[in-house]
């Protein structure tokens, strides 16, 4: 399920100082939103922005899970509240900020189509990791 963190960790690696243990520990702070926010767009990540945006997420995520586990039954069917629309909209806003040039736009389109094509034939998590291989077109084409 979390296979995409492999690709995110590879991208982050050059931005982390220190020995292997220290880098591994810093790598644990990667979650989707803070990884995307800390990405400066030039191949370097702002690691303090990464840590700083992960911390409040971690606290509220954990707190929310605890509240949900205790009081979740009171809401009965959460599906009808439409809350599942929040996550994609948030990531869409991060995605739009990344579409700076034609290369990144085509990479995004290719990755989306590949992920969707793989959904029925691979376990959850794999389509997203596989889609990240579309980034390899950066080898052939100079990004603007």
């Amino acid at each position: 399920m979390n296979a995409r963190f492999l690709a995110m960790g590879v991208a982050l690696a050059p931005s982390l100082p220190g020995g292997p243990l220290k880098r591994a520990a810093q790598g644990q702070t990667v979650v989707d939103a803070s990884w995307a926010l800390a990405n400066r767009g030039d191949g370097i990540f702002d690691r303090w922005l990464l840590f700083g945006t992960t911390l409040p997420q971690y606290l509220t995520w954990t707190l929310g899970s605890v509240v949900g586990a205790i009081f979740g039954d009171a809401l009965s069917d959460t599906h009808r509240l439409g809350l599942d629309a929040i996550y994609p909209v948030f990531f869409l806003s991060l995605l739009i900020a990344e579409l700076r040039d034609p290369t990144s736009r085509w990479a995004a389109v290719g990755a989306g189509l590949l992920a969707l094509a793989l959904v029925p034939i691979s376990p959850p998590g794999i389509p997203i990791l596989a889609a990240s291989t579309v980034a390899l077109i950066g080898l052939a084409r100079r990004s603007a």
Partner: protein
Amino acid sequence: MTLTYTQVWVLILGCAALTALNKAFGPVLLGGRELPPWFTRVIVLLAPTLLCALVVTSVFASGRSRSVGAHTVGVDVAALMLWRRHSLVLCVVVAVLVTAGLRAI
């Protein structure tokens, strides 16, 4: 399938360990050295590819099947609004309202 108490905890700890390994892999193997320019060009493209794959699979798929629902419409409306540069909070609220509204009828 019903799991025992112990099995559930083994599963949780297993997933946690696997995620930690996933996250450590890149930084341990590739960190602490200068990387060539081609590597940077690939990294720059990782963000749009991963984010697009995340969005697409959460909007047009459920588990291992392609499926659309009320949330697909809600997110589409919000996508238009984001493109027109409306604020993120407003877009999220509209997406939730459209989704919940469609499910109510």
